[in-house]
């Protein structure tokens, strides 16, 4: 509706005035279009230059990049991404498992439970979580969360040690995948909560009132009207959170002990991720080492790009659906 009005009103007016008296129209339009295209160029350039600087290092690699667990590009020039990629996926998965239910609860609280007047400020409070810089979460994680998780970790290991994730001998607690996962969960919670909240608020009022009129309790109304409507939105929100968690660098660089192995034990001091390894390894990297880190960054870029594109496609499809339904 609105776009119609704009093209009808804006189109002819532009043409007429451009021909008669305005000399600025063409350059201005050119600059605006150019800026938009520049963004596309930057995205392409990221891929191109990461590849071009990674290739020399990949050529010099004496191991297999996709399967080797070791990371010694500076010394023996054997390096592989397997352990790092595993750590990235596992820590992000832990974060997602913790953050998604909490974020959905927060979103429902703001959209359907909190008193109207309080909803805005309370939502802002959750958004503030996103404003805390990641290095501060890292510092907090190392000095506060790591010691705090020691006792619960030991308890979990003692009682549920048969479960592979909680297994492990010797040192329990400390700089673990669990600690990293919890910090990541806190960091991705605001974005999942914010998007879910938006989607929940878009639930057609009619559906909600129809459910209530049929005698549903508030929870039944949410389960029957709000959640089914919001499911694609929550899924894409979780995917965006997953992308964030995988790319998060500094907080986990401070927490993970930078081991290079594949282990499901989240309660023993293990863990690393692609991003953390870049932050920790950059200082002492040789030219080959830098190339290797860039190669690992390329892998991270591709993974997060796929996750994000998937999430955006779900959201965009939802938007069209919501618009046509309205």
């Amino acid at each position: 509706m609105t776009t119609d009005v704009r093209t009808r009103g804006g189109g002819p007016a532009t043409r007429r005035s451009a021909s008669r008296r305005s000399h600025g129209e063409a350059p201005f339009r050119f600059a605006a279009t150019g800026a938009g295209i520049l963004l596309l160029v930057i995205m392409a350039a990221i891929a191109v230059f990461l590849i071009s600087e990674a290739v020399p290092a990949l050529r010099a690699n004496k191991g297999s990049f996709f399967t080797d667990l070791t990371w010694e590009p500076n010394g023996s020039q054997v390096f592989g991404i397997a352990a790092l990629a595993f750590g990235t996926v596992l820590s992000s998965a832990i974060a997602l498992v913790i953050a998604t239910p909490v974020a959905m609860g927060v979103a429902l609280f703001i959209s359907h439970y909190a008193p109207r007047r309080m909803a805005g400020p309370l939502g802002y409070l959750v958004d503030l979580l996103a404003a805390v810089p990641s290095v501060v979460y890292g510092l907090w994680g190392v000095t506060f969360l790591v010691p705090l998780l020691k006792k619960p970790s030991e308890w979990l290991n003692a009682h549920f040690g048969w479960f592979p994730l909680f297994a492990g001998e010797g040192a329990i607690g400390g700089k673990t995948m669990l600690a990293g996962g919890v910090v990541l969960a806190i960091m991705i919670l605001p974005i999942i909560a914010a998007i879910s909240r938006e989607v929940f608020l878009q639930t057609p009022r009619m559906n909600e009132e129809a459910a209530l009129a049929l005698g549903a309790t508030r929870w039944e109304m949410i389960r029957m009207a709000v959640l089914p409507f919001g499911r694609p939105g929550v899924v894409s929100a979780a995917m965006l959170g997953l992308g964030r968690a995988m790319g998060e660098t500094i907080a986990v660089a401070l927490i993970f002990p930078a081991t290079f192995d594949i282990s499901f034990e989240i309660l023993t001091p293990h863990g690393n991720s692609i991003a953390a390894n870049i932050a920790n390894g950059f200082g002492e990297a040789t030219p080959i080492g830098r190339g290797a880190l860039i190669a690992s960054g390329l892998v991270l870029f591709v993974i997060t790009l796929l996750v994000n594109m998937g999430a955006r496609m779900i959201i965009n499809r939802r938007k069209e659906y919501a618009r046509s339904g309205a």
Partner: protein
Amino acid sequence: MTTVQHISAGRRVKDRLAQGLVYLAFALAVVPLVSVLWLVIKNGLARFDVEFLTHSMRNIGARDAGGGAYHAIIGTLEQVLLASLISVPIGLLTAIYLTEYGNGGRLSRAISFFVDVMTGVPSVVTGLFVLAFWILFLGMPFSGLAGALALSILMMPTVVRSAEEMLRLVPNDLREASYALGVAKWRTIVKVVLPTAFTGIVTGVMLAVARVAGETAPLLLTVFFTDSINNDPFSGPQMGLPLYVFDQAGRPNDTAIDRAWTGALTLILIVMLLNLVARLIAWWRSPARGR
């Protein structure tokens, strides 16, 4: 009260349980925020003094107390300013293209989609990109400018999205009134649309600035480390406040950890202040303040 009695006990319990869980979830989300802020303030105040704000780390040994983050604060301010100077014009023009010229064509949909995708590019990847392109490929030195380039890539999508949203809020009547007076489209945008959306755009830019001011990873790969004051972002290694916190937090001594906390406090103060001012502007100018 009478309606409640018609609902069976099981359904009522479920309803109450769900409500309890939802409240619990919100409490769970707020606990870390309070904990982080409390610890940062408590531990940060110990070294939050004049020396910290006015001295660098030059000639401060590994175990020495004292020293400060002046060089890092200067670095952060300059890098963020440069990043804004680069990203705001590009972001704003892109937003103008999307709202005023794109008309839902293929190019504008592609740009819109990739702006969304760009928000998800990990900050460390933008740092690697500047490292690969600017420093390794073009042979430029590590500098504050390199850091600003990485930060500007992070800022762009945020600026585009918020500016676009604000431009779309400008009523079409205003544009049409301007066209009716024979004003060219670009002058309408510059003289009518942008001024109307101005405060909203400022808010968005400040939120974007607040976001990148706390970024460490891109700086780590592009500005290098230094313990000395370097006022020139165009040559020589610089420091940034987030980088300073990361550096100090990685050292084993208590004096360094103290400095890290104070750095974190300074950083949070800067970021929160930007955030708060931005939100206040947004709230103050919001047409639907009553909602």
